[in-house]
């Protein structure tokens, strides 16, 4: 399998235009052209670590602050899931759990796996890893559902003393976490996966 780089070419990542490897800019869309992003891994790690750091307060601090008739209750993400389970709403609990816990953590693990495998120049499962990368890219934005729900609830439920819902620190943290992991996934250059097989030959 011949790569573009071996053929002395470089593809624009945005529009797919193929240029000679020495071209600095895409002739079609004007974006910068790089045969390989040399700092890809650095960026991946940086964004990933930032995302993981902010994911900690997102889970420790309350996501929603509900005040109802003078009665205040704070609920964290996991606390909310447990509460929903106790109330018998398993389906909603599953959705929340999946969107707020499984996906972010899955993304962390997947990105770490991809980054390490590239660093070690692993030649295993290169096709699967590429597919995994695309799945992560696609699914990342859906984690924002949580944040949207909190934003909508906070905007709608402002009935003064009867019932009020305010976002907690966790909402911001979670939003940042999702953002950072999305950036991490975007920073990853999937072409590096395939370079390993070339170098080991």
């Amino acid at each position, binding site marked *: 399998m011949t790569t573009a*780089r*071996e053929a*002395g070419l470089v593809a624009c990542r945005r529009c797919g235009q193929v240029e000679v*490897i020495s071209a600095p800019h895409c002739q079609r869309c004007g974006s910068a052209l790089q*045969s*390989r992003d*040399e*700092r890809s891994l*650095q*960026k991946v790690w*940086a*964004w990933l*670590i*930032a995302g993981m*750091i*902010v994911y*900690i*307060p997102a889970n420790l601090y309350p996501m929603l602050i509900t005040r109802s*008739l*003078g*009665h*205040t*209750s*704070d609920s964290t993400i996991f606390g909310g899931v447990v509460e929903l389970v106790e109330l018998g709403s398993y389906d909603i609990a599953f959705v929340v759990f999946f969107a707020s816990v499984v996906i972010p953590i899955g993304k962390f693990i997947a990105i770490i796996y991809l980054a390490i495998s590239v660093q070690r120049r692993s030649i295993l499962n290169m096709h699967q890893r590429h597919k995994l990368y695309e799945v992560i890219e696609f699914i990342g934005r859906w984690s924002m559902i949580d944040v949207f729900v909190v934003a909508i609830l906070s905007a709608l439920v402002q009935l003064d003393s009867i019932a009020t819902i305010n976002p907690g*620190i966790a909402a911001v*943290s979670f939003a*940042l976490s999702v953002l*950072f992991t999305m950036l991490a996934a975007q*920073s990853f250059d999937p072409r590096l996966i395939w370079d390993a097989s070339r170098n080991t030959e």
Partner: protein
Amino acid sequence: MSDPQRAADMDVRKSRGGLSWVWIVPVIALIASLSVAWQNYSQRGTLIDIIFQSASGVRAGETVLRFRDVEVGTVEKVAFDEGLTDVIVSVRVDNEVAPYLDDDAQFWVVQPDVSLRGVTGLETVLSGVFIEGTWDGSTDVAQTEFYGMDSAPLTTLDQLGTAITLRTRDGSALSKGAPILHRGIRVGTLETPRLSANGENVIVDGFVDFPYDRILTTATRFWDTSGFSLSLGAGGVELDVNSIASLIEGGVAFDTVVSGGERVSQGYVFDIFEDEEIARNSVFVNPNTPTVEIAVLFDDSVSGLTKGSEVRFQGIRIGQVADLSAIINEMDGEADVQLQAILSLETNRIGMDADTTEEEALQFLADYVENGLRARLSTANILSGALIVELIEEENATPATLDIDLEPYPIIPTADAAIADVAETAEEVLARIERLPIEELLQGAIDLMASIERLANDESVRDVPEELASLLKETRALVASEDVQGIPPDIRDAIGDFDGLVQSFVAAELATQLTDALTVTTEAASNISDGTENLSEISVALEDLLTKVNALELAALVTEATSTLDSIDTLIESDETQALPASLNETLADARAVLVEAERFLASEDLQALPSDLRTTVTDLNAILAQIQAAELVLKLDDAITSAAAAADSIETASADLPAITAELQSLAEKANALKVEELIDEATQTLASIDALLGADGVDELPENLNLSLAELRGILSDLRTGGAVENLNSALSSASGAAEALEDATVDLPDLIARANALVRESREVVESYSSRSRFGAEALTTLQGIQDAADAISALARTIQRNPSSLIRGR
């Protein structure tokens, strides 16, 4: 491998050494997260543990701790201690207040509470329970472990007032939260009662709020107001109930009866007395008087003697029984159970100073015992059998001593109790009551009742009401009879006649005549007035005369007069003279009769006819005068007058000589003055005296009396008239007339309408008739008829107007 490939590889590897700017992001994220965490950690307060018996409604993370209704912390954890005996509530307290949480901090769970004192903690119904804490504003050694209270303390630490301690023997009337009352208003609250350390008393803390605590002095007395008191006395049954709250919860009241007490400090101990009376009386007993305690041993039963029973000496209270117990007394190797009463004697009541020491007091008693002082039981109340201890001086007592060093108490010897005979007397009384013939008494009562019943059942007695009823019926019929009903109209008629009479008087113009008479009188008076002007001259002459009279020998005159009076007296005293007034009276009666006849004569027709005769005479005279006039008499009269005037002139000239005449008259008067007036006066005096005597006679006195009697009769007649209700009848008649007038007035209001309607009817009728035929006979007749109706209507209208204008005319018939 080609060059471009290598070059590209070189590029990648080369650039891997440099650091991307993206690394700033995780660093910032880390710093931000750590700073948030640190901020949270540094702001979290101190964790304290509060131990509760139960923590109902307390939830971790939700229940808050409040201090003066401000949130100062949140419950973090609710757990049990080892052995599950208590609940440990861990509360995260704000750092601001944590230093103040020292020994005096109190915590309790606020829950909704409905009690007699009101509803509290309502806010917790919605928000859930919370923990309330109270502590003072001083920072002592801060603690982290506290014991929570079951319920809110009744007083907070910073509340103004005085905390006191109350002591009583019976705590059944006291409960937590019971009120402390002062003259019926709540001024404080009791805490939970508890037993004293030795178990003898019940002690309860109380708190009297500011400013009422200023009333508290050492002379203040507390008493129990719980429940109600029922007392039966000479004034009847007296039921005394305080507020419902104190009835159920109990409570104490206090009052400071006498002044002079000192202000009490916090925690001062007061005793609670059984009732107000005892409390007030106790004021006069200084609770701090020094006492001396001695024991007395009784062999007999002391049933009826209690703690607090009085100890009396010659009828005066000198102390009380402090304690009662049974002791085993070993005497001569033989165990004997005796009853020991500890007497607490107030030394100042047995005549000792306040400075007297206990030893001195005991020594005094010991001396007294050697002289025969003994203690004995005595009855205080025959009915209740209550006993007191009495100290008496027994003569010829068996010698005994008071060992003042005996422990624990010196023992005073006893004398025989003075209670046995009381029981005997009571028995005797009962026996006497038993002997009373109660059976016979009851039988007699039953017989009496039976005879009363027989009497009541008697038919004649039963008939009485019926007869009364029939009598009343007859009376009613009488009243309702036409004759009786007809009386008022008759009276009204009579009044009508009277009214007519008065009218006729008015018509006769009596007033005018009277006015004329008065005019004549006035003229006469003015004549008299003119006459009096000459009096001054005469009075001058009289003065002279009187001067001469004064010069007379009056004394002799008086003597003579006196003698004359005496003779007149004797004369008058004679029967004939006495009879004179009677005959005078008769004469007067005759005179009256004559007057009556004269009156009758005057009223006679002949006399009445006289004026008419006179008139005819006058008419004749008039005719004569006319004839005279015709005969030119006036001219002749004129001549006569002229000659008369000439005569008058001659008189005037003659009057010039008048002063001379006057002088002669004066000389004449002087001569008269020179006359022997004395004799004349003597005679006059005599005459006057006899007249005086005559007037002083009995019969003359009777004259006014007769007159008085006549007047009294007249008055009686008048008052009869008045009491006869003539005036009232008149009034009622007038008011009914007025009512009738009003009714008429009302009726006349409707009359215009009626007339208008009649008019309308006539108009319509006329139209109808005209529509028929004006020439037809029927029509003409109808027309005249209608015309007549219209006339009648007009007449009614006129009548109505008249009545409206003057309603009374209907009554008067005009």
